[in-house]
């Protein structure tokens, strides 16, 4: 009986926390349907719901375009980082060379460099390559921010059983075969975890897409939403409507991949 009560209390606490976390999202949706005259009214049913903010949001922001841009860039960065970080982690765990600790420290140390310090060099590089306002220009600098991916994959590869790798070598397998046929399939959960974390980080990136794009042709979601933050004040209604619209694809994706996303954050140890 006492155990049931304790579980009930624990679940009540968890429900409260979940409610507190979900409330801003819920209020975003509620606000997006409220007429401007009652936008700040605490009563969600203060007036009949309206689609005015959605019409305004769709008129000011090409929602489909920015969602597609963001999805393409996020997917490209996630896949690219996974490919590069897998190779780097393999080299850092399977090859012994004198500079290995220093190489690992240098790679992981890049995470300590604040992003604003890299903005001008990144801009110079992308500009001179003629890649401004292109998908490649958006993706390329973000591919280099792979310290977290290298760190996580290296930790998992280091824990991979030596016996399996030795046996493969004895059987005549090349390093590439060992990586692609033995390690990658066994590391699939952690690879998908890292991929999801990188995808979400890239989806939320703001400063680089802001500088690397002009106009809405290549703009990402985070850059696109700023059209509602003006010097004449925040257009809260259209902003909430646009935020709801751009969150829909992610929400749908989350419904189908809930377990994997949760697992990704648990494995990576970040939030």
């Amino acid at each position, binding site marked *: 009986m006492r155990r049931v009560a304790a579980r009930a209390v624990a679940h009540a606490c968890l429900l409260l926390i979940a409610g507190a976390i979900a409330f801003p999202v819920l209020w975003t949706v509620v606000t997006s349907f409220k007429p401007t005259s009652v936008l700040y009214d605490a009563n969600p049913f203060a007036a009949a719901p309206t689609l005015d903010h959605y019409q305004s949001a769709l008129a000011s922001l090409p929602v489909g375009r920015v969602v597609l841009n963001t999805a393409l860039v996020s997917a490209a960065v996630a896949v690219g980082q996974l490919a590069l970080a897998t190779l780097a982690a393999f080299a850092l765990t399977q090859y012994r060379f004198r500079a290995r600790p220093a190489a690992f420290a240098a790679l992981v140390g890049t995470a300590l460099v604040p992003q604003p310090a890299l903005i001008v060099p990144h*801009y110079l590089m992308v500009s001179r390559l003629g890649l401004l306002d292109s998908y490649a220009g958006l993706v390329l600098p973000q591919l280099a921010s792979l310290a977290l991916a290298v760190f996580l994959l290296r930790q998992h590869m280091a824990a991979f059983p030596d016996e399996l790798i*030795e046996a493969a070598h004895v059987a005549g397998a090349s390093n590439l075969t060992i990586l692609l046929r033995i390690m990658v399939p066994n590391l699939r959960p952690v690879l998908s975890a890292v991929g999801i974390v990188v995808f979400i980080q890239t989806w939320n990136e703001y400063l680089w897409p802001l500088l690397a794009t002009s106009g809405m*042709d290549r703009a990402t979601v985070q850059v696109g939403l*700023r059209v509602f933050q003006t010097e*004449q004040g*925040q257009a809260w209604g259209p902003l909430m409507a646009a935020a709801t619209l751009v969150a829909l694809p992610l929400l749908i994706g989350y419904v189908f991949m809930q377990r994997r996303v949760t697992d990704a954050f648990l494995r990576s140890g970040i939030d």
Partner: protein
Amino acid sequence: MRHRHTASFRAGVAAVLATALAAVAACGDTGTAGSQAADEPADEDTGDDVVTITFESYNYGTDGVGGEGTQRLIDEFEAAHPNIRIEPTGTPAGEIHTSVHAQAAAGNPPDVAQIGWSKFGFVLENLPYVPLGEVAPVDELQAHLDGMYPAAVELGMHEDALAGLAYSVSTPTMFINADLFAEAGLDPQDPPSTWAEAEDAALAIADETGAQGIYVDAAGEAKSDFLTQSLINSNGGRLVGDDGSLHLDDPAAVEALSMLGDLTGSGAQPAVGEAEAIAIFESGQLGMLVSSTALLGGFASSTEGVFELETAGLPAFDGHDVAPTVSGAGLFVFADDPDKQAAAWDFVRFLTGDDGFTILASVIGYLPLRPSLIDDPAYLGDFFAEDDRLLPTIEQLDSLVPYQVLPGENSQQAVEFIQDNAVAPIMISGADAESTLADVAQRARELLGQ
């Protein structure tokens, strides 16, 4: 064996890298016409002597009146100048100087940019602007400036040269919820003209209606320092001396900023941040909001059906005249090609000319910096006859004081340091004004190398 590089592994690595590079190159081809290498000539002279200039603006592309007004300015300019094409880019006000800095480092700055006065020090120290005297014929420039408020022209002066020209300018104003005034037994047509009267009115609103009384938007992010300067100026002080020294801890400044803390301490002002205060005001639960006139256009639509919106000038300190300074932005030219410089001057001249300021004032709500337009029925006469809410601050333009730029390459950091560590704590957290300003002034001087 295990640690040996094998030929197949090297081939694999090469294959992955080659695939990645090919993909990147392919993606690069998908860029728009606007993406060009830094040293590549811009899209110009397409055969009909059309010159294309780039314009980076924090109003362009935004939702509402700012974006609409800027688009109209561009459309009308292009209609009047068929040989010049404007390629606009929208960048938020807080990041536009960083964006121009990055582009300038790549050798490809925008030809014209709208940059806030609070970043003027950064522009002077870090950006390759071209003084307007070098892009405009002397007599043409002088004739253009003659019709503007002298204080507005003075804003963009640096070492006897016109670094930039006042464009989207706003000054402090007091937004009033006329409904709350009436409910509290106050007359919205006779608003407080001094800070003492404003505090009394705020307390009356709080007592009689249960709403909040007043909020002075001096502790906000990024650009609220123009209000800090306006308060210090209006109390007979100044932030920067003639020799560039910082006067933040002078008695006039201490007294001016103490007023902010006193308002909060007496219950006349809520201890909240800028965004919350604006939300409270828009919801009809704040009697007075002292902020930038730039908010008028947004408030006019967001408060419609909520309460009646009125405006008044910046209140004065007892025994002193108001001496407001400005927020907003100037236009800076970065073009280095003579044809583009000529086109940039035409564009700047239009934006800050009669038609430009008419659109800026009537569509967006910025101040018309040409006094002759205000009563002229061909320009703003009819507009102001219908909606006079911008007039109280226009009347203050005669007492306008130029925005003061902190000297040195750390000026922007010093401004933010002062706002975050002095103004906000005094106003919101009840910090003692005298000791806080003395401490922060000392540390700001170190930052400025004084």
